[in-house]
């Protein structure tokens, strides 16, 4: 069940410039969460009132802890980056549908930039199911994060915008180069990347599951802020507008019209 609750920061770590990793202790939210879901975090600065949606990077059900990895994009995430262990924060979650991993087919995890974090928990889940895992990661340059951790879960292919590491180009370029043409794509990253993957999946007749982003207010499907055009009518308004916060954030590539 979704709830708003106070959680406690366990640890905060800077991964690279502008990207932070935080573990938080929840009161049951972690126990109910799974890969691909997100929480919304409230800021303390009262000039900003809406919570910030952040994906779950790791879920430790046993200890009821969550890990998030986030980029400082504005004042809200800047505030988060200043939290110290012991700090009490308000969160809402678990939100969204998350990834449903099909272990019977090769699992292709694809992520770009700040889309990498949710792939960690997805990889862990896939590995637990015994799936065959390939991981494709796109970064701006050689300042990567979570890369070493992800290597534990399967074969990792890297692409960088500036060519300083791995394939010079996008994750799509890397996938073409490595002939990754089988299995199911589970992806998270910027919209152009997801659009590219949708086409890639169609080209090779792969299934794809893409995690989308949009500005959110309620996070629970009530306000209709966070819609994306869908190929079929949605089950809320019957107008081909799916709600990313509840129908998603993970959608089949076939559901979405970018």
């Amino acid at each position, binding site marked *: 069940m979704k709830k708003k609750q106070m959680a406690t920061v366990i640890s905060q770590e800077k991964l690279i410039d502008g990207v932070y990793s935080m573990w938080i202790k929840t009161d049951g939210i972690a126990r109910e969460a799974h890969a691909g879901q997100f929480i919304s975090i409230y800021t303390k600065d009262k000039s900003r009132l*809406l919570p910030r949606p952040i994906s779950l990077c790791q879920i430790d059900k046993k200890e009821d802890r969550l890990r998030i990895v986030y980029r400082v994009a504005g004042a809200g995430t800047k505030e988060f980056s200043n939290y110290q262990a012991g700090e009490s924060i308000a969160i809402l979650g678990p939100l969204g549908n998350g990834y449903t991993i099909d272990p019977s087919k090769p699992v292709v995890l694809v992520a770009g930039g700040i889309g990498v974090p949710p792939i960690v928990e997805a990889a862990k889940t896939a590995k637990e199911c015994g799936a065959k895992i390939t991981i494709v990661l796109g970064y701006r340059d050689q300042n990567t994060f979570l890369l070493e951790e992800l290597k534990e879960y399967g074969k990792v292919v890297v692409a960088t915008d500036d060519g300083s590491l791995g394939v010079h180009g996008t994750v799509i370029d890397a996938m073409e180069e490595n002939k990754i043409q089988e299995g199911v794509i589970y992806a998270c990253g910027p919209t152009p990347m997801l659009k590219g993957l949708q086409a890639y999946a169609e080209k090779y007749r792969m299934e794809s599951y893409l995690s989308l982003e949009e500005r959110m*207010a309620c996070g629970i*499907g009530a*306000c209709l802020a966070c819609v*994306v055009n869908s190929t079929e009518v949605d089950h809320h308004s019957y*107008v081909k507008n799916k709600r990313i916060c509840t129908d998603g954030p993970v959608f089949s590539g076939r559901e979405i019209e970018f």
Partner: protein
Amino acid sequence: MNTSVKIAGVTLKNPIMVASGTFGSGAEYSEFVDLNRLGAVVTKGVANVPWPGNPTPRITEVYGGMLNAIGLQNPGIDVFIQRDLENLKNYETKVMVNVCGHSIPEYVEVVERLADTNADLLEINISCPNVTKGGITFGTVPSVAEEVTREVKKVAKQPVIMKLSPNVTSIAEMAKAVEAGGADGVSLINTLTGMQIDIDRRKFALANKTGGMSGPAVKPIAVRMVYEAAHAVKIPVIGMGGISTGRDAIEFMMAGATAVSIGTANFINPYATVEAVEEIEVFMKEHGIEDINEIIGCVE
């Protein structure tokens, strides 16, 4: 201790309602709050047919609130009656249905379809773009607002609450116009039109350019307008605009509101409504108030 109030003959167990469009049709928030605790559930604006709404980004954050340009996305009256009103039959709370339209016949059609349903009250949102008048809203010209009211009243089986736009020179004139048209009550304020520019990208923050401002930042304007409307008309006033707590609700009631709606605050705290109900009870105890109706318009 009595917390119940009466709007146009309909008794609410307490004055706390939700603001249309911020609470869906109750289903989503029922995971957080017991809808039976609310004075009324007010549903998202519904039209005669499904409306797709505006392109994204539909919302942005502003100091102490937000701008929205959802564009009244809704499934249309058929699905609404079958699914949403049906679901609300499971709760012991009143239901106010918010109605939108692009033209008077569209409003009338929706209101007619609601006649034999479990809707207790109708709230007519006249801040919708008026296609027959070139996109200006029905809610900014007194004579047009009066006309909508009159036509809706002709067919309505339930009491009609006219929801007023704050983007006007005189809210008192607007309230008087809809009272003259036969309204059974007014609710206010809808959102204040605002704009935000992303200066780094040289783009509007919202795809729609402008959006409606709501949240704590608008409260002083809303309280003033509720006070002015309550002093201009005899019909009851439902107050809203930036209410987050029971104390905020009491401020609106002291200004003249008979009931209040909590909107944007639900996004900030999904428990806001029930917490407000509790806070009102605490305030009444602390101040020895036997009947909540005592405080309505008590500050003159």
